């Protein structure tokens, strides 16, 4: 039982009226008490194992041994038979004898080898991102061994919600930390405006302020709204006509069903999930911004999961712990598709920016940031909590102690161990990696068809490479050294280096170095060039970017004060925030035969039906995408600093209903789409304008600007340049000489933005100007800016101009040369409505005038085509371009 002093200070009850003590201070008190609560000057008369006043073993182990020794003397490797993970093993030592002789640093091999600069080995320090032991660290090691070389024997912090000094009962009572409760939809006056139970909650609030829903939007507005909201694309002219002509009672409901069944639904809503997951096709952080060649399989998995309406609980479990759902290590390869998919899903846990493949950015501090980003993605996206503050200190406003942050991070430790790190670079793995290959982030679980196809393509090239490699290996050493200096494209670098330096003796240095300024012979260069060319022709072997346990016992997790790895605090076990324990099943860790089970326990904990956050957070975010604002406006922060829900009962009703309906996202979409709230007009009228100016109560549908992807995709669609092919590797991008980044054309135009490569360092310009987020690490709601560069992009970019000319061509194909029919078609195609009489007159008039002006231009430079018809086509293209620039094209009512 903790001392009262500790309880009071750690819960914040003491000191009175002041700020709560930092966890570092609380920990100091705890250690002081455990050390006998000695007063200044007193000397411990106990067993003498108190480490107060001496070098702290935890400090030595976490900051020196873990960082500089364990890579070769730890879990994966025990070089020379030495394992430094436990005191027993260190005392036992390796082939050369005990590493440590307690009390006698000079007799300890550990000290002798380090002092002689033999350890850690100089040869690998650049490649494996470690550096020598500093003299200060060496002194500390000596001191520690002199004092007996104690190991860090403090048990992990025990967290019992009933006695937790850091989280109080009052903390647990906060609404977002209690399970949602079933609410009955209230009675309302305007019964005739109720289409869905959700409408009751909204109406009740509106009626309190003497407001009501607005009238239903007209069918033409509604069809465009629904198309964009469900698919992110405008309706085609035929689709509009069909809907407007259908006067059956349930025509709208059937439209909603059709839209939800459309593959475009998964693409549009998948993109939102991918933003939340921080999806990108490159690693970021390092200038080279290495491409992630396998990430797209996860993107396709998300789209397919949404389209097949995979229940949200399964959707989460597979993404967090798909590898812990079946013993993949025992499955024969290639995997059955349904099993492979479970590994692909875990790509979710590998999406944060990660520069640790660079040896200059592969140190412990950077690795910890990768883990922190991944945790940030998980907690903000799934739990609606901002825990990032607690990486460095106890959360100031929410009851998330630093301890709980590190308990959460311990769940990831079996896969992301900063002291035993897997590089995200594929270059580090062997070509024949199998399940037992531990030095990779990738798993061999790709579908058989893809594996076979690439194998067939690569077989002859691989034979050629083997042949070239043999010839290169036979070259004299000095020639190979010269060849090593020849610049080689990055993608071929590692493999060519491997061949050229194979068996090469270390380079002679200093005076022994031969002065050789000759160039390699042409034959040697030709061999190298051929090798590079062949290497570049190799297709990447299909693999799965997955998360998985590395096996064995990971290094222990400590609280890191100020988030610094040189500043370790107490040890913690995996766990979930203590504040989420009231009426919530606890985190239940069940070790598996092939894996620790840590993530599966987290996933199962998250999807328990009464979890306070999981369902609320996702229904809120979906609501937000429809109405521009969530019921909780701060969609990633349900804590105390977040905004309280505008309609708490509605949020709870939705959450409970969602879970009871089997976590079906499509059912949720259908309910929202068919509600009166959604079907309202967006017109702003009194008294709503005065009483609800921000539309918090949803007295009308909010007029909204389209997102970046929908804008680009719509331009392509109305120009009939949208390549409908789904899935597969992302389309390449191109940086034009003026710096504009665009997608490369396919045979059929360009594909939807979700299928274009998302390179962190090279965002597509049109998407960037319309607020496509920089995923650092993720984004739950895109901002909507209004800036001049958007106008420049829409007016002057070649994308808009070229697509306007395509659009004009298709309009002429469809309706011929009659100006009135053309204007009508342009409006229908781009704005999904017919022009008014005034607009029709204005448009035809403009067409005539513009055609004359274009003709005068063509007189100056006579074209190959017939002048008059070209002028009319250019005039129509200008009209299309103008309409694509209009506010109406990028706003939905």
């Amino acid at each position: 039982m903790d001392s009262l002093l500790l309880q009071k200070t750690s819960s914040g009850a003491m000191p009175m009226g002041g700020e709560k003590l930092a966890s570092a201070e609380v920990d100091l008190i705890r250690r002081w008490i455990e050390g006998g609560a000695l007063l200044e000057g007193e000397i411990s008369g106990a067993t003498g194992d108190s480490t107060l006043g001496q070098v702290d073993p935890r400090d030595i182990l976490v900051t020196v041994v873990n960082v500089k020794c364990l890579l070769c003397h730890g879990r994966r490797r025990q070089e020379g038979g030495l394992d430094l993970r436990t005191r027993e093993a260190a005392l036992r030592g390796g082939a050369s004898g005990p590493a440590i002789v307690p009390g006698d640093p000079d007799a300890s091999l550990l000290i002798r080898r380090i002092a002689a600069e033999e350890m850690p080995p100089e040869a690998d320090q650049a490649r494996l991102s470690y550096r020598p032991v500093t003299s200060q660290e060496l002194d500390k090691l000596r001191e520690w061994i002199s004092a007996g070389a104690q190991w860090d024997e403090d048990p992990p912090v025990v967290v019992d919600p009933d006695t937790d000094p850091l989280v109080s009962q009052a903390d647990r009572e906060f609404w977002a930390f209690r399970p949602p409760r079933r609410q009955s939809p209230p009675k309302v006056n305007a019964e005739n405006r109720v289409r869905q139970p959700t409408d009751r909650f909204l109406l009740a609030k509106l009626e309190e302020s003497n407001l009501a829903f607005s009238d239903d939007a007209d069918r033409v507005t509604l069809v465009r709204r629904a198309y964009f909201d469900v698919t992110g694309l405008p309706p085609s002219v035929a689709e509009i006509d069909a809907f407007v002509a259908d006067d059956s009672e349930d025509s709208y409901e059937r439209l909603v069903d059709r839209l939800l069944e459309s593959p475009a639904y998964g693409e549009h809503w998948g993109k939102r999930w991918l933003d939340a997951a921080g999806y990108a096709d490159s690693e970021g952080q390092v200038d080279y911004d290495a491409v992630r060649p396998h990430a797209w399989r996860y993107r396709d998995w998300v789209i397919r999961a949404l389209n097949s309406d995979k229940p949200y609980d399964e959707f989460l479990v597979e993404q967090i712990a798909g590898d812990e759902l079946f013993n993949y290590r025992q499955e024969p390869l290639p995997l059955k598709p349904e099993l492979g998919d479970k590994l692909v899903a875990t790509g979710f846990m590998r999406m944060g920016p990660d520069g640790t493949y660079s040896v200059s950015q592969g140190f412990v501090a950077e690795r910890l940031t990768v883990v922190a980003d991944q945790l940030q993605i998980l907690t903000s996206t799934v739990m609606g909590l901002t825990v990032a503050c607690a990486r460095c200190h106890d959360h100031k406003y929410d009851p998330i102690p630093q301890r709980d942050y590190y308990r959460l991070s311990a769940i990831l430790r079996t896969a992301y161990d900063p002291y035993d790190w897997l590089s995200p670079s594929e270059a580090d793995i062997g070509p024949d990696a199998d399940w037992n290959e531990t030095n990779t982030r990738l798993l061999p679980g790709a579908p058989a068809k893809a594996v076979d196809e690439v194998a067939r393509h690569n077989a002859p090239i691989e034979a050629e490479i083997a042949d070239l490699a043999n010839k290169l290996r036979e070259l004299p050493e000095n020639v190979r050294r010269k060849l090593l200096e020849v610049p080689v494209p990055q993608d071929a670098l590692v493999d060519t280096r491997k061949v050229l330096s194979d068996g090469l003796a270390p380079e002679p240095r200093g005076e022994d170095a031969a002065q050789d300024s000759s160039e390699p012979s042409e034959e040697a260069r030709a061999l190298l060039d051929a090798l590079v060319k062949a290497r570049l022709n190799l297709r990447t072997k299909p693999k799965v970017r997955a998360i998985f346990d590395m096996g064995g016992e990971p290094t222990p997790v400590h609280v890191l004060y100020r988030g610094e790895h040189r500043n370790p605090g107490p040890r913690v076990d995996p766990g979930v925030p203590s504040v989420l324990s009231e009426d919530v099943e606890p985190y239940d860790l069940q070790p598996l035969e092939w894996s620790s089970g840590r993530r599966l326990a987290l996933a199962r904990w998250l999807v328990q039906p009464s979890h306070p956050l999981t369902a609320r957070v996702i229904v809120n975010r979906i609501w937000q995408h429809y109405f521009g604002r969530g019921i909780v406006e701060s969609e990633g922060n349900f804590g105390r600093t977040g905004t309280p829900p505008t309609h708490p009962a509605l949020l709870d009703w939705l959450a409970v209903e969602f879970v009871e309906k089997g976590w079906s996202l499509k059912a949720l979409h259908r309910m929202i789409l068919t509600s009166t709230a959604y079907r309202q007009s967006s017109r702003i009228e009194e008294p709503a304008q005065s009483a609800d100016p921000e539309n918090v109560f949803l007295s009308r549908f909010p007029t909204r600007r389209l997102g970046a992807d929908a804008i680009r995709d719509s331009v392509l669609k109305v120009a009939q340049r949208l390549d409908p092919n789904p899935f597969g590797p992302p389309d390449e991008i191109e940086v034009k000489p003026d710096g504009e980044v665009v997608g490369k054309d396919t045979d059929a135009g360009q594909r939807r933005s979700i299928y274009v490569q998302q390179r962190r360092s090279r965002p597509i310009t049109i998407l960037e100007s319309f607020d496509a987020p920089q995923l650092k690490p993720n984004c739950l709601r895109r901002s909507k800016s209004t800036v001049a560069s958007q106008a420049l992009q829409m007016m002057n970019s070649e994308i808009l101009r070229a697509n306007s000319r395509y659009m004009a061509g298709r309009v002429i194909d469809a309706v011929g040369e009659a100006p009135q029919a053309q204007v009508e078609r342009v409006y229908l195609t781009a704005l999904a409505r017919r022009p008014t009489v005034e607009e029709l007159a204005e448009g035809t008039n403009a067409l005539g005038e513009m055609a004359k002006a274009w003709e005068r231009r063509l007189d100056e430079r006579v074209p190959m085509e017939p002048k008059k018809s070209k002028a009319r086509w250019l005039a129509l293209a200008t009209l299309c371009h103008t309409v694509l620039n209009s506010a109406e094209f990028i706003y939905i009512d």
Partner: protein
Amino acid sequence: MKAYRNHRGKRGHTAQQPSRRDFFSRVGDGLHGAALASLLGRDLLMPKSAAAAVGERRVYDLGVRPPHFEPKAKSVIQFFMNGGPSQVDLFDPKPALAKYEGQPPGRDLANDIEFINEAGGFMPSPYSFAKQGQAGIEISEILPHLAGQVDDIAFIRSTFTTHFNHEPAIFIMQGGRQFSSRPSIGSWIVYALGSENQNLPAYVVLDDPKGLPVNHIQNWQAGWLPPVYQGTRVRSEGSPLLNLQPDEEYPPPVLDLARSLLARMDRRHRELRVGHSELEARIMNYELAARMQLAATDALDVMQESKQTRDMYGLNDERTASYGKRCLMARRLVERGVRLVQIYIEGQIWDNHENLDKSLRYACGKTDQPIAALIRDLKRTGLFDQTLLVWGGEFGRLPLAQSREAGVAGRDHGPTGFTVWLAGAGVKGGTVHGATDEIGYKAVENRVSVHDLHATILHQIGLNHRDLVYTHDGRNERLTDEFPARVVTEILS
């Protein structure tokens, strides 16, 4: 603090809706002024009701905002010397290196060396240093032009950072942390202060036509600040802004017809949607974009300068022409009220890993004359006293040789002690602040962190780094975060 984040508190207002013209006259005749006016008019007069329930709505635009206190500088020009210029060869003479020449570094230095396997022994500078100016500050012989301006400059010889690799160190220099998520200092400044000129971008980036610096466009990112605060790349060759001009312009009558048709469409669209001020802002944006085509083209046309001026910047010399042009553009931009100009340089010319002498002379040859010319020109035009100049890279270099072969050696990155200099508005010229150790490896005296440097830059432009706050994910974020940071008052007048 609240005052500048929340427009309500900022300007006195009456119960009457201010006229459109009122606002225009106060915030310039630009788009953002207009958007601001319409947003403000609405916010000011909005009955307190539901809005209060969901927290205050903020307006993010580039309208002028008051600083925290009377600033010394109106604008900042930053010479971002990406790559890591070598302090011991340029600004920080270390004769003692001769004594240790060739000796290998010990285990402690090794922890600060990136290319550890190539580390050679200590290497003295190949250059001589002579006392310059009235202040008698020692400057390397390869900076002859800057030597004439040392009395205008305060040299901080004790700057240090915490990462030895470019990307993280550049992120630290730009945004205060070694990771790529944070807004750059330029974004913070325009977020706080807006811009004096609504026809030009507030935060201009003049990158080198030869290529983007390391970290690419992330150097001037807004991070989680609203995107309106990110830097705008302005090209010094061809069309200055992306899509400022189309590949082929429509015939003028077509353009006029299209513009007036668009204006009518958008006006009608907007009239049916009262209360949507962003629609108004969007309309004004199209007008701004049109004006920008003229304003930006004019601002960046260095041929409007006299031949004498152009020659002073070295536009007549192939070596200096490119950087000189960007320096001259910078002057023309700050003259027009642009808040912040960052000048970048091709790839990594200060990253002198090998052939120190050759590569360092190249970098100095490109930049020395233009920078000195800019200082003189700013003094001539009276802008020097209201413009803060900042020169520095993401780190310096080690006093060691890189490569164990003689003759071709360069220097590896040195984060623990390097020189940054400031000049202009409120900076005490002819000053040397801080010192590195005997060998120029580590800052030991009056150490200045990157956060100190940030605090100092913000201070000169009228901002207190503790009060420059943006709430993101429930956390109050600052450029200086929670790091200790102090204004380097010793170099200020």
